[in-house]
């Protein structure tokens, strides 16, 4: 191992603190989840109520963030949009994480005849961006929640497979794994008992980062009309609607984009924070 040049006392061991990015990320996501759950019980106005008399009102004139072209309260739409956005992202990434990690674990445990095909299929899937898959799936079964979840989930699968495999391969080379094998444990038992717990952190980091990406992709899908069909509010479609009324109500384009960026920031911060926690030397 190389010794880094002295950097002036920064390497003095300190009491372990929570990485700041972990705290910031967790706080943002907590706000998002609370907002999403709250939206099911309460929003300032009924989010899908059409009030033509109040259409295109600027922020604070009607509601905190103004109203859209149908007079719906933007803040209420944003809140319910958080629920839709988060549930789609969580379902899709859970799907991708479960299958991807299982395949990566399998590839690392079995090597040889299974490893290469699993990773090559992953390469093929990775050549189809989620948005493009969604266009294909949407052409067949129409747009909607399932289309978005499938497209995002399938695309994230090879990412988890690769991350899990590479991390697992390192664990398989460890002495304690060899010892467990020598004691007569089956490869499957070692994979679940020793390898999986040790790669869980790495997978969790990826999980958080992929959740952020999923929010972005979901927003893109609904921007193109491939996400939830109206009247269910979604951040992406609010932006698409905002573009139509750009001249009259430019503020409509600000809040939904801000909400998307805020949510993605939360997940990427959480992912980075988790990485800082697991490997304090990475930064």
């Amino acid at each position, binding site marked *: 191992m190389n010794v880094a040049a002295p950097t002036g006392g920064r390497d003095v061991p300190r009491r372990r603190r929570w990485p700041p990015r972990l705290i910031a990320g967790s706080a943002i996501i907590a706000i998002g989840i609370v907002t999403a759950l709250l939206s099911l019980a309460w929003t300032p106005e009924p989010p899908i109520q059409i009030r033509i008399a109040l259409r295109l009102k600027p922020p604070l004139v009607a509601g905190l963030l103004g109203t859209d072209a149908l007079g719906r309260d933007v803040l209420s739409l944003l809140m319910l949009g958080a629920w839709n956005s988060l549930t789609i992202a969580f379902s899709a990434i859970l799907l991708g994480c479960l299958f991807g990690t299982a395949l990566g674990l399998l590839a690392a445990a079995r090597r040889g005849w299974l490893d290469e095909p699993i990773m090559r299929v992953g390469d093929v899937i*990775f*050549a189809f961006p989620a948005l493009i898959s969604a266009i294909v799936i949407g052409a067949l079964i129409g747009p909607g929640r399932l289309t978005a979840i499938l497209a995002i989930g399938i695309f994230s699968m090879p990412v988890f497979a690769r991350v899990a495999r590479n991390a697992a391969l390192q664990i398989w080379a460890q002495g304690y794994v060899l010892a467990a094998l020598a004691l007569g444990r089956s490869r499957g038992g070692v994979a679940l008992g020793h390898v999986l717990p040790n790669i869980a952190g790495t997978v969790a980091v990826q999980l958080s980062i992929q959740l952020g990406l999923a929010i972005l992709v979901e927003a893109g899908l609904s921007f193109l009309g491939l996400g939830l069909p109206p009247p269910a509010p979604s951040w992406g479609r609010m932006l698409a609607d905002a573009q139509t009324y750009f001249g009259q109500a430019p503020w409509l384009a600000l809040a939904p984009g801000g909400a998307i*960026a805020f949510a993605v920031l939360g997940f990427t911060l959480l992912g980075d924070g988790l990485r800082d926690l697991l490997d304090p030397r990475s930064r």
Partner: protein
Amino acid sequence: MILSPVLRRLLVFAATLLAASLAIFIVMDVLPGDPAAIMLGTSARPDTLAAMHHQLGLDRPATVRYLSWLGGMLRGDFGTSITYGVPVSRLFADRLALTLPLALLAVVGSTLVALGLGMAAVARLGRATDHAVAVFSQLGIAVPDFWLGLILILCFATGLHWFSAIGFPGWSGGFFPALKALLLPAVALAVPQAAVLSRVTRAALLEVTHQDFVRTARAKGLRGSTIMLRHVLPNGLVPVLTIVGLQFSFLIAGAVLVENVFALPGLGRLVYQALAQRDLVVIRSVTMLFAAFVMLVNLAVDLAGLLLDPRLRAAR
């Protein structure tokens, strides 16, 4: 079996391409669901449906259809668009004239910016510049490219009137007006990419600065900038280029969105309109083209890595 690294990569590329075409074909032509019925809608009369079946060649066995689609693509024949009534290859040629320069601008721009930011961050490690780069990349990753496009239109087109908000004058109207129309969309695409890449660059270069040869270069008394450009950058370039390749599939997706924001008649808009018109012939071929692009870029990155780093040539 000993193959040269280049030949081995070319073979893997060809096999992956073939697998991708098979995947698209199975999803769109073989899975339950009648493409003719999807295109015509549920109210189609049986005889129009039969005619459409014949026009699409759906009355032939699946293997024959797959092979003729594959053979056609190899000859540059991507079928005929149902809505436009023209060969898909002609649509491609028209639309590529926009999407290709747009993607190129974004890739080159974001890579150069990221290399610059990454070098600046490593040179000023732990100081204000480093933190500023970190903040830029953290925020840039979170901002959706199509929203950034909207904001840019809001600021520079409807606000300052420096650019026309949407549309594309075409290359026939002169090089610079066309380039100008691509500038804002390219920035919208490039910023999130640059954010991702600048982190990767910082990490890759930082890794290199811990190597012995960098210490030796410092001990020799070389200037910091010389060490960075001659020793650190070349050694850190390969991982950065690999991520440029992996990011390309996100760039393609971004192009679909950004082209729609700026109403640019590119491939992304073509596939979006084809979806609205249920033109499965176009969707199938554009999807294949996108996948081929992504794979081609990754192949190019792989080969560039071999060219740049002699150590990779020796491996395997």
